[in-house]
């Protein structure tokens, strides 16, 4: 087995002072050095909460109930904001969905990259600034010397996201968490940003945790995929396995509901939907949380939560996993 650089074990996050209202219901996974792990799911599944927990950026309204997050073998002090400041950017970088929100509108973008470097490393100004220009060049921004002095509102969404990526990678972190990095961007810009991330990964060996709802992105950029549903890990597998032989009915439903022009004729012009909606986090149901929306659900599913099954690199939590290959 490869070398896990980030390891999350049985992470439970609840609404503050309400241990019965769980947002994450015990999630475990790991990220290997240099790989891309995609975390996929719909809103409310807990994927963003997972990334915020790793960064020690949990909102005030929630708290960690149990579980550990280990980075290179040692536990991250996620509740200690001061200690986490040393980890952020230096060891784990983060890219957000809204690049505009991640940047301060009052400072030139180059200064903001510089600030990240100076926060973590003692460097003479000139060397740090040279590093800023180097970073902006690496993320393919045109005329980095001039662009470094531009204010955020002068740049396009794609350029801003490149600046944010430069900031996230400024101190050579080992892991980069990208939370819906391209959702706010046009599809052509999305491709450029994903290509950039993959190229930077190839050059620096950074591991990427890609949080997304877009299965198309996953298919072409991730090594492994973790599918989440309503605070649980539903399935985890190498990308190819997950797309070709998904075991969990939610994964299957998600794949079928995703428009795919190459399969459109087979579907007769209509998409296959998953009926119903995600259960409320306050719903105390004891069984599988997907059971109310699942076509194969039995009494067992409604009564007991399925324990994870591991088959090599493929894991899933389902009493009645699908077995046939999906073509």
């Amino acid at each position, binding site marked *: 087995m490869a070398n896990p650089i980030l390891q999350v074990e049985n992470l439970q996050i609840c609404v503050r002072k309400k241990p019965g209202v769980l947002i994450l219901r015990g999630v475990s996974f790991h990220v290997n050095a240099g790989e891309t792990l995609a975390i996929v799911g719909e809103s409310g599944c807990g994927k963003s909460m997972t990334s915020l927990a790793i960064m020690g950026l949990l909102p005030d309204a929630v708290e960690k109930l149990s579980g550990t997050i280990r980075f290179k073998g040692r536990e991250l002090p996620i509740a200690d904001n001061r200690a986490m400041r040393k980890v952020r950017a230096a060891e784990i970088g983060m890219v957000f969905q809204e690049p505009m929100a991640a940047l301060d509108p009052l400072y030139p973008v180059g200064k903001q990259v510089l600030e990240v470097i100076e926060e973590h490393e003692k460097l003479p100004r000139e060397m740090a600034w040279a590093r800023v220009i180097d970073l902006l060049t690496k993320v393919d921004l045109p005329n980095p010397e001039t662009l470094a002095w531009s204010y955020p509102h002068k740049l396009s969404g794609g350029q801003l996201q490149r600046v944010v990526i430069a900031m996230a990678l400024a101190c050579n972190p080992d892991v980069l968490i990208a939370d819906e990095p391209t959702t706010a961007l*046009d599809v052509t810009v999305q491709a450029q940003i994903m*290509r950039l991330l993959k190229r930077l990964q190839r050059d620096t060996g950074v591991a990427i945790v890609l949080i997304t*709802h877009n299965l*198309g992105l996953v298919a072409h950029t991730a090594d492994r995929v973790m599918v989440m549903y309503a605070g649980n890990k539903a399935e985890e597998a190498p990308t190819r396995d997950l797309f070709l032989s998904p075991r969990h009915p939610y994964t299957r439903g*998600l794949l079928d509901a995703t428009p795919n022009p190459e399969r459109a004729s087979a579907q007769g012009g209509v998409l296959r939907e998953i*009926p119903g909606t995600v259960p409320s986090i306050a719903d105390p149901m004891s069984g599988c949380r997907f059971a109310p929306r699942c076509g194969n659900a039995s009494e067992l599913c409604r009564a007991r939560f399925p324990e994870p099954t591991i088959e090599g690199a493929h894991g899933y939590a389902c009493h009645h996993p699908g077995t046939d290959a999906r073509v």
Partner: protein
Amino acid sequence: MSNTLLRIDDLHVSFRVGKTMIHPVRGISLHLDRGETLALVGESGCGKTTLARTILGLQAPSSGRIAYDGNDIAGLDRFGLKRFRPHIQCVFQDPFSSLNPRKRVEQLIREPLDIHQIGERSTRLKRAHEMMERVGLPTDWGRRFPHEFSGGQRQRIGIARALVMQPDLLICDEPVSALDVSIQAQIINLLWELKRDMGLSYLFISHDLMLVETFADRVAMMYQGEIVEIGPARQVWSNPQHEFTRRMIDAIPVPDVTRPPPPAFRIDAK
């Protein structure tokens, strides 16, 4: 009654934003047949939403013609447009801001009937309830407020409100782009069924070519205020003619691991 429901000829729209004049729609011509779904696809800022707003009379055109069922409706004032309102309705993108937060759901759906005095006062509520059922909302939720519903359910409310007057043309402005994949499929299927059952025509505005390709009859590709390519959906997808369409298709990640990644995703691509 001709077969063409909507015809747009050489439409230009320009307006002032602050001190600068912008020109988001630059000479668009298209037609939409009865019972047809025409998808209008483009990236942000291409003018597709301005075009929709102009057809709906929310934005005055600077020149050109919009003919609805043979009647020119471009530049009609609010009063003149009122006659056409019941025929052209619209579903908005954001399910959170598109419903008045202080109105109950049944009120929201009933309101258009009240305004146009359609049907007897006593039967309007019944119509609203029928419409709720038709879009898959239990009628006993009628007394609730919009914030008690999920995004997908709110979009159903918006659809019920738009369809309660039995329009011929529904303009859908990115109706599913704020929704999750599984909910997106529910709404697309609902729209598809409603179209079949009520004989509607759709002008479907989207940034997602892959999505519209699965259900639109024709696709118009819009780029910088102009339509650069228009044709049957299948054909646009499999045999794109314009450079912009090709570039977009090259960048779309198809969720299929058996095919190679799209060209724009390859690391060595430039």
